[in-house]
């Protein structure tokens, strides 16, 4: 029989490690931003339903940020997809053809979600009762995108099924819902997203502390509580996912693959570290610091998850497609130019961010320092500061 994915005579123009490294870096950022928009819309929906002024204030903060975070979700989503196409082109394109209509529908769905975000962000005051509906719509639309990608990328790992699926319906109306890991995978991502969104709300709370200590403190506690709760659930779902995997794939993370096992171990440890830090931060006198270390630990977790995903995919694809077998002829000149421009581009970005910071200065109250203690600690019995979300 002819091989499913014949080798392409055209070489790939960069070493595999470089492409993978860039894919991982950009994907990490994509996941972080994506979690904020996906989880943020859900969390804001909950806040809007609860409906007290402080809830609405927190939801407004998320709504204001959504469109810009979305812009970066998309930008940082495009890059890994590009590198992925160099590394796994034939496998990816073929799987995409199998889910083609769903895959292509992502574009109009995203456009709609994006415009709804702008509506929420720019017309907040006029929306009133429509807010929860809009948040729910944004969440549902983004959920569709996540669902489709989960289908696509689980399908990518299962080339065995490509041919029968294609011959059964070449119009590409397949989803991969028969996949047993699909549900835990989706739930894991969903709770992870809520956790990250909680962190985002907490960060906005920290920023509000000097101007509006009451709200800032409440938002910190609420966001952090959501983070901790959702993280614990996501970890439990992760265990489910792990056991839903076929034994030989699960084994990769339990000693079978060095990178896989390391990523698994470090990932879990970092998640626990994030959990502890954010939790302790609730009553700490340096909440900002605790929170940011939490964010750092979380980023490590996401990076590890992403590496595990990569290990899993490479193992599943090994009989069909091995990136190590690709013919490589690096275009060093172009790579150098890219790196130079990348550094230059980052320079421009920092300059722009600095301008933005100056244009939107944080209110100039005394720096937090130990002062944060005053705002953060529950004021003793009778105070409302101790209430969770």
């Amino acid at each position: 029989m002819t091989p499913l994915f014949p080798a392409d005579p055209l070489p790939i123009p960069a070493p595999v490690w470089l492409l993978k490294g860039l894919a991982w870096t950009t994907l990490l950022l994509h996941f972080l931003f994506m979690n904020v928009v996906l989880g943020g819309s859900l969390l804001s929906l909950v806040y809007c339903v609860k409906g007290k002024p402080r809830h609405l204030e927190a939801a407004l903060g998320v709504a204001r940020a959504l469109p810009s975070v979305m812009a970066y979700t998309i930008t940082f989503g495009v890059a890994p997809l590009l590198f992925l196409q160099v590394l796994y082109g034939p496998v990816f394109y073929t799987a995409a053809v199998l889910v083609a209509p769903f895959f292509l529908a992502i574009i109009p769905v995203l456009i709609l979600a994006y415009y709804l975000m702008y509506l929420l962000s720019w017309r907040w005051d006029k929306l009133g009762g429509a807010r929860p509906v809009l948040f729910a719509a944004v969440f549902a639309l983004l959920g569709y995108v996540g669902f489709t990608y989960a289908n696509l990328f689980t399908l990518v790992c299962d080339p065995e099924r490509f041919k029968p699926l294609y011959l059964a319906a070449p119009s590409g109306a397949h989803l991969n819902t028969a996949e047993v890991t699909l549900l835990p995978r989706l739930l894991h991502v969903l709770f992870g997203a809520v956790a990250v969104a909680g962190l985002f709300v907490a960060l906005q709370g920290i920023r509000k502390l000097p101007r509006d200590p009451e709200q800032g403190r409440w938002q910190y506690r609420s966001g952090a509580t959501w983070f901790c709760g959702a993280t614990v659930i996501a970890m439990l779902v992760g265990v489910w996912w792990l056991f839903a995997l076929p034994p030989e794939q699960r084994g990769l993370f339990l000693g079978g693959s060095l990178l896989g096992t390391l990523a698994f171990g470090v990932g879990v440890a970092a998640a626990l570290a994030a959990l502890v830090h954010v939790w302790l931060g609730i009553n700490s006198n340096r909440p900002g610091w605790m929170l940011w270390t939490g964010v750092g630990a979380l980023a490590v977790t996401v990076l590890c998850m992403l590496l595990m995903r990569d290990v899993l995919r490479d193992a599943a694809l090994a009989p069909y497609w091995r990136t190590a077998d690709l013919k490589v002829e690096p275009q060093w000149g172009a790579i150098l130019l890219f790196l130079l421009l990348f550094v230059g581009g980052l320079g421009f970005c920092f300059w722009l961010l600095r301008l933005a910071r100056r244009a939107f200065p944080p209110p100039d109250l005394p720096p937090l320092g130990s002062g944060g203690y005053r705002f953060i600690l529950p004021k003793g019995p009778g105070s409302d500061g101790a209430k969770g979300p």
Partner: protein
Amino acid sequence: MNYPVWQVAFGSGWLIAVVATLHVFVSHFAIGGGLFLVLLEGSAHRHDDEALRAWLKRHSRFFLLLTLVFGALTGVGIWFTIGLISPEATGRLIRIFVWGWAIEWVFFLVEILAILVYYYAWDRMETLTHRAVGWTYFGAAWASLAVINGILAFQLSPGAWLQDRSLLSAFFNPTYFSSLAVRTLVCLALAGLYALASLAFTRNGLRPDLVKKSAVWVAAPVLLLPAAAWWYLRTVPALQKTALTEVFYLPHLARTVMVSVSLLFLLAAVAWFSRSKWILRPLSVLMLLLGFAALAFSEWTREDLRMPFLIAGDTYINQVPVARLAELRAKGILATSPWVSAAAVTPQNQRRVGEELFRLACSHCHTVRKGLIPLAPKMVAVDETFAANLALRTDQMRGRMPPFPGTAEEARAIAHYLRLSAMPVPQPGDGASVFRRRCGPCHTVSGAFRPLAKSLKGMAESELSDLVQNLDSMNDKMPPWTGTNAERGALCAWLAGQVKASPVGGAP
């Protein structure tokens, strides 16, 4: 044939066309519009013109919503679409140009941050800094055009890359600079078009001076466009340019573009004089539509110039790399593609396999019954042997088709399947109809495409009849005559009359 072909209702061609045209119309505005904003902001600053600043601020809101959301996502949409419809060519382009795309992405990153800062910081920065942000946006946006233009132009004119495989030759290919010039002018004109519409529909009073300025933004680049287009056509490789004579509708298409562009110029002049919103509103909408039409038709022309390739000289539109054609023709599609259900054609599987082969080899441009260029009705109008012979000779026919990438049995399976997919209808037996069915796919009598009048001039009907009976012995590109004797008689009588009447044939 390395990839499965996604089956799209009504043909996949329209899908790409729709996504691409929408994107082009917005993304070019995203570039020109950026320049428009910073330049006018400068003018507002110099003349201390608060009203202008206020309008620019509103205009930039519309700009942000349109370009950042719709423009950016339809760009991703094109990429998704070509990956689905042309995975082979997309994969090849990505392997050649991944660093080009990566560089474009860097510009994109800067572009997005710059436009966000520009919009949100209107009243929160010094004008100088704000304009620097605007210039950063425009610079990055134009630079990303300059990169992507290299890849688009490469598809039409890979030039020296076909031999030397160097990235530099691929990028700075023969149509690179000329198409960059055309696209840059389009960006500027679109900025003016959108500005006119934005002015006409603003709630405040009309500012005649701004209307005039915007009209000039349309008229000036439009005035230069013909020269740029001429330059562009000069740089298009000769082989691709033959489409202009071979594809009968292309001259009309090109003329439509020219007419719309000239009209745009005239209407810009009318806009220059308009003082009333009630004139400017319909006018600006009309101008946007004209601009859209001109752009859509010129992109269509460019695509047709490239046929039958996706990367000229390298990859055919039906995902066959030129380098693999000989192998495919020798071994067949069934033996080399994983995306079929059988390894050989048998009488039992002929229909099913024919459908699969049609999908792999022809469905990029054809549908079966409905949609883009349906084939079943044409195939059912002739006998199966002739139909199979046509399928085998796609590269000889009108339509700039790629060569058939398989064996004779496979071509017959396609013909068999197509003929079973339409109801046979009685075919008219007059000479003109017979010619259309049996010679028309490859000849005209005295038209542009492989005319016969000259070589048939002076032949008697009986000589013609002999000739038609022995077509395949004349050259191996022609299929043997498989029609009935009655058809042959009608054909030759009609042909003799036509040849005599045609200017070349009639002269002694």
